[in-house]
């Protein structure tokens, strides 16, 4: 088959010693960038771009791509160890991952995250190889009405995230929606709720907000009490996921992979929504949903697989159509253009060495990452042994550096600290942060998509039901809303008997 031939050609390119080195450097840097909170792959890629001017485009793209999916691997590390999301897509991993760490199961958490990411990443690359172009065509069919419908489904998912009182979660979601409204409105060009504060003009930054809400607030809470952490002995057996862990997580990983992959292809969808959706699905599919929020391994496996699959999926629109699915892909697009290539449908024909070489290097890179990350697990677990009074100033320092590095803006650090305090108060009063974060992400997208759709249809609401993809998602949303009523009724009636 022609594709197998192309893949073999890709191996020829990717296995050249120079390209292997670039791949390794890329994934290494990516992992480090992912571990450091705040500094995201986008900034790292932009910084390293000039270094790639002197090398061939193939090597450059291999390295830059490695940074991106490497960062997805690394992001889970700090989430699990110290409850600080390395980047927005790792927020969900904090919820159960950190709880597992507190119970002394940091090793298995990190291990399942690494394996889950590997499986998801490899699947994404295989799917990219064989199904790339038709999937990209699907991505193009997402216009404003489809995005609106997708966001509605996302809002429905929100309700599954709550682990405590539903009312409180909905309140948090409402706060998230309001916060999402801050900033410049795309449709009218007006600034809303900014009160002249510079850092708010583009809205509340998602990354500083989650770093504060989860990471800083955790530190603040820990300062109150002395945490007795159960650090298991460093016997290798206890550092890796047990067979039971595998049995529990394998379906989560599979579900997360599919979900993440498809959401990653849609421009603007991406890893964040995928990880939240995966968490919600795992909770729904689990036989013991009460364990979620207390250290259920499925709550780590699923979302981690989802965000890595999304990273792989987001390459599809770029490589096959020349459309960037997220900010990182936009930089890669620029990088390709600087090297004189024209991303788009012709890329496969004009530069087959780049196209197939990059795809194959992604297989290799995923493997390298697994080999890199697994032996590091004992090392990371030792970090937890550091006495907390030494650890927490370092955590705060890294968070502040990370928050500043987002846009070289002191305002982001302030946002993070304010959210840290707010997050601390929320914990004290038992309010959950996850629904707020999801609403903060989805709210503005929902509003923008709704208004764009109405402009397109001249105010006619039927646009949402006259397009197949949009109708499909809306029906899904309605189902998600109604089904719990029936399952609850069944539960209540069996209880009564």
């Amino acid at each position, binding site marked *: 088959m022609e594709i197998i031939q192309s893949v073999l050609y890709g191996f020829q390119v990717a296995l050249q010693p120079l390209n292997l080195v670039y791949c390794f450097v890329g994934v290494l840097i990516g992992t480090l960038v992912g571990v450091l909170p705040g500094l995201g792959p*986008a*900034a790292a*890629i*932009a*910084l390293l*771009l*000039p270094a790639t*001017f002197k090398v061939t485009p193939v090597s450059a793209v291999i390295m830059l791509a490695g940074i991106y999916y490497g960062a997805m691997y690394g992001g889970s590390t700090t989430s699990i160890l110290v409850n600080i999301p390395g980047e927005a897509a790792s927020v969900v991993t904090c919820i159960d991952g950190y709880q597992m760490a507190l119970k002394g199961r940091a090793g298995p958490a990190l291990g399942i995250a690494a394996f889950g990411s590997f499986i998801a990443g490899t699947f994404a690359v295989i799917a990219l190889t064989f199904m790339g172009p038709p999937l990209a065509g699907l991505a*193009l*069919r*997402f*216009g*404003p009405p489809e995005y609106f419908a997708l966001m509605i489904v996302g809002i429905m998912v929100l309700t599954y995230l709550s682990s405590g009182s539903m009312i409180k979660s909905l309140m948090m979601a409402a706060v998230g929606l309001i916060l999402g409204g801050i900033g*410049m*409105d*795309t*449709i*009218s*060009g*007006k*600034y809303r709720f*900014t009160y*002249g504060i*510079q*850092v708010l*003009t*583009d809205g509340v930054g998602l990354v500083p907000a989650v770093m504060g809400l989860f990471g800083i607030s955790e530190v603040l809470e820990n300062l109150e009490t002395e945490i007795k952490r159960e650090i298991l002995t460093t016997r290798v057996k206890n550092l890796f996921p047990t067979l039971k862990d595998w049995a529990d997580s394998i379906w989560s990983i599979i579900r997360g992979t599919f979900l993440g992959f498809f959401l990653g292809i849609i*421009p*603007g969808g991406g890893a964040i929504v995928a990880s939240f959706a995966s968490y919600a699905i795992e909770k729904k599919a689990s036989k013991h949903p009460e364990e979620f929020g207390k250290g259920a391994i499925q709550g780590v496996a699923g979302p981690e697989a989802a965000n890595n699959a999304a990273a792989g999926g987001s390459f599809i629109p770029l490589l096959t*159509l*020349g*459309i*960037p699915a997220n*900010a*990182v892909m*936009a*930089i*890669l*697009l*620029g*990088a390709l*253009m*600087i090297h*004189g290539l*024209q*991303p*788009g*449908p*012709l890329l496969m024909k004009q530069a087959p060495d780049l196209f197939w070489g990059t795809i194959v290097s992604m297989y290799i890179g995923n493997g390298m990452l697994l080999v890199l990350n697994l032996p590091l697990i004992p090392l990371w677990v030792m970090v937890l042994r550091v006495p907390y009074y030494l650890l927490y100033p370092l955590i705060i320092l890294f968070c502040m550096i990370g928050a500043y590095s987002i*846009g*070289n*803006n002191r305002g982001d650090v302030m946002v993070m600290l304010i959210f840290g305090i707010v997050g601390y108060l929320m914990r004290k009063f038992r309010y959950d942060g996850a629904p707020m974060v999801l609403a903060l992400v989805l709210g503005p997208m929902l509003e*923008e998509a709704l208004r*764009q759709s109405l*402009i*397109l249809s*001249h105010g006619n609401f039927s646009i949402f039901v006259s397009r197949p993809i949009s109708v499909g998602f809306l029906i899904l949303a309605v189902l998600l809303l109604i089904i719990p009523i029936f399952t609850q009724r069944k539960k209540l009636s069996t209880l009564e008997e």
Partner: protein
Amino acid sequence: MRRFIFIVGLFSVIYALSIGAPILKAQPFPSHPVQIIIPMDPGSAGDMVVRPFADELGKILKIPVFVVNKPGAAATLGTDVVVKSKKDGYTLLYANTSAVVYAKASNPEIVPYDPAKDLEPLGLHCFFPLTVTVQEGSPWKTFGELVDYARKNPGNVRVSTPGQGSIDHFNLEIIKSLTGTQFTMVPFKGGAAAITALLGGHVDVACIANSLSGPHVKAGKLRILLLTNKMREFPSVPTITELGYKQDLLSAWFALFAPAGISEEVKKVLVPAIEKAIKNPELEAKIEKLGFIVDYKSPAELKKIQVSDYETARSLAVKLGLSK
């Protein structure tokens, strides 16, 4: 007591040395690295252009020139940082037209600086041609055909732009008033979203930068109907004045600025160095490959362009109701 005096004395000496040294060192400009602040995201069009430029400028000035991204608030955040920075010539601004013209025109109360008064022009680098683009399969082969159709079907032609108050939006308004047509403008968040909508067929036309549409035109998926600046690559695509209309469309450009009030000696070093860097043939070729038109303009010419663009934009903004 003696130890106390010794320590205080030591600190005073160290302090004196640390502030004294730079003052004593009356070295010619530039004596240490220069930073160029670019108020755009990493990976954006301007970012791709400024990095090779900074490299080249560094070679000419013989000190490192590094680039710092400070995106936000439609490029006004980073610009404000430069406006408020030290006026010693070590902090420069690589601005797009949003930063120095359009943001202020659309929202004068929000933007905290006055681009004409607070910034000192150092030289215009390149023009950023903007296009009116349609799908390859669409029925309109020329701009004229599009206008005719739009006249007969007011409001039915949907046009995507990178945002409310963006330069493409302003251009669309100029086109509307020149041709007497009614288009439905759909704002998106940025050029990539606008062109994706066109590729997916959700809108009929896109008003976006050539750097975004060029690759798709070459791949045969899109067709450019109109350009703001003539381009060698697309000899058959007209500009609006070639078609006989009286007013020219606004074009986007990138230029270098310093905070107003830098000294003459600094200007004497920077302006020629910038000119030399911009006119470097290798750099020019690299940038033209990205879809831009390198066309150096001196500080005086830049000032003229900046002021005239601002006046056009301001009157349009008031007319459109974008601002009062």
